[in-house]
């Protein structure tokens, strides 16, 4: 009897961000190489993975490229959809699949989404902010596009270790919060260092004619933090968990406004 199926060799790598190993399986050696370059510094030798995705590469006809991302939970499975990818993840089995074209951006979005879902259950989050370690503490610099995340990252002195210029990774630990480096880049297009440190402060960025730090009321701190969180899921339980996580964070971590003139002297105020 002729063989009706063909066994396809699966290639894989583990991308570990924030201490969470995610295995990505693909049958395409070229795509594997793309991922190895894209996540250089975050590829782990870990044999265990907390999440595992099989990637099926398809031709670019999934749908509207400008469609917003949709993240829904139904019947024990999360489904993620955007114009350029379709994915499913089942937390109980830790496994999922991704259908996308052969580009590194779609899987980057899937990784961000799955990390936000896992972190939301644990009191952590991804935040639109640059972050860097100085003198053993991590400092977060939050703001919308053009707020100065890239600028402050570019101005960082040699003794500061850049964790990211775009999306910070914050985990809740027993004694506080820890920020991790991420490969999620902004305009600087430079991967963060794969290291971590306890969070010392969150600064809300504002450009100005001088460098100064001003306290802000707790309510404004919470609102600003919520406005800068990355969160995609249409899920009441996780929305509530993320809301409370933001308030926990501002009750334990100093939040201030950092007004800065774009030169290196601003870092004299940090750390």
């Amino acid at each position, binding site marked *: 009897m002729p063989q009706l199926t063909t066994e396809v060799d699966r290639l894989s790598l583990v991308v570990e961000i924030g201490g969470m190993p995610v295995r990505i399986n693909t049958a395409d050696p070229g795509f594997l190489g793309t991922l190895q370059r894209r996540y250089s510094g975050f590829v782990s030798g870990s044999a265990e993975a907390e999440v595992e995705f099989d990637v099926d590469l398809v031709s670019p006809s999934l749908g509207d490229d400008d469609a917003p991302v949709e993240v829904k939970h139904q019947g024990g499975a999360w489904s993620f959809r955007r114009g350029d990818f379709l994915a499913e993840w089942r937390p109980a089995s830790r496994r999922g699949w991704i259908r996308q074209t052969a580009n590194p951006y779609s899987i980057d979005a899937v990784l961000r989404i799955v990390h936000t879902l896992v972190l939301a259950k644990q009191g952590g989050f991804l935040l639109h902010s640059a972050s860097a370690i100085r003198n053993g503490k991590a400092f977060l610099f939050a703001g919308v596009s053009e707020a100065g995340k890239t600028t402050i990252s570019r101005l960082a002195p040699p003794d500061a270790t850049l964790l990211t210029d775009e999306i910070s990774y914050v985990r809740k630990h027993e004694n506080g919060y820890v920020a991790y480096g991420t490969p999620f880049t902004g305009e600087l297009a430079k991967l963060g260092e794969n290291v971590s440190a306890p969070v010392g402060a969150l600064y809300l960025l504002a450009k100005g004619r001088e460098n100064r730090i001003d306290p802000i009321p707790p*309510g404004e701190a*919470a609102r600003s933090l919520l406005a800068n969180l990355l969160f995609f899921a249409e899920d009441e339980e996780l*929305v509530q968990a993320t809301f*409370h996580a933001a308030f926990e964070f501002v009750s334990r971590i100093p939040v201030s406004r950092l007004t800065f003139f774009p030169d290196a002297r601003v870092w004299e105020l940090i750390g």
Partner: protein
Amino acid sequence: MSRLYLARNPRVAARSLDGEMMIMSGRDSTLFTLNKTATILWQAADGATPLDQIVQQKICVEFSVDPGEALKDAEALARDLAGHGILQISEDPIVQPNPAGGASR
């Protein structure tokens, strides 16, 4: 005139921080900051106390306003908050699954 009862919607998350009450809709992640009157309504919305009693015992005491006018304004505000999914309103007492009401902390 029928009485109106208010209850906190258990599908929203609420936090009070430094005197500011903030509420997030679990449905669409919209964030609301309540003013002082809305905060009084939220805190008193136990499903059992009628609105006219809340107005008389809480709002009139706090703001020294005419009870009739205050009740009219409070009812409009309560209906607005209900429209945003923050409160539930009914002409009968509302029995809530969680006596604490909502995911408030």
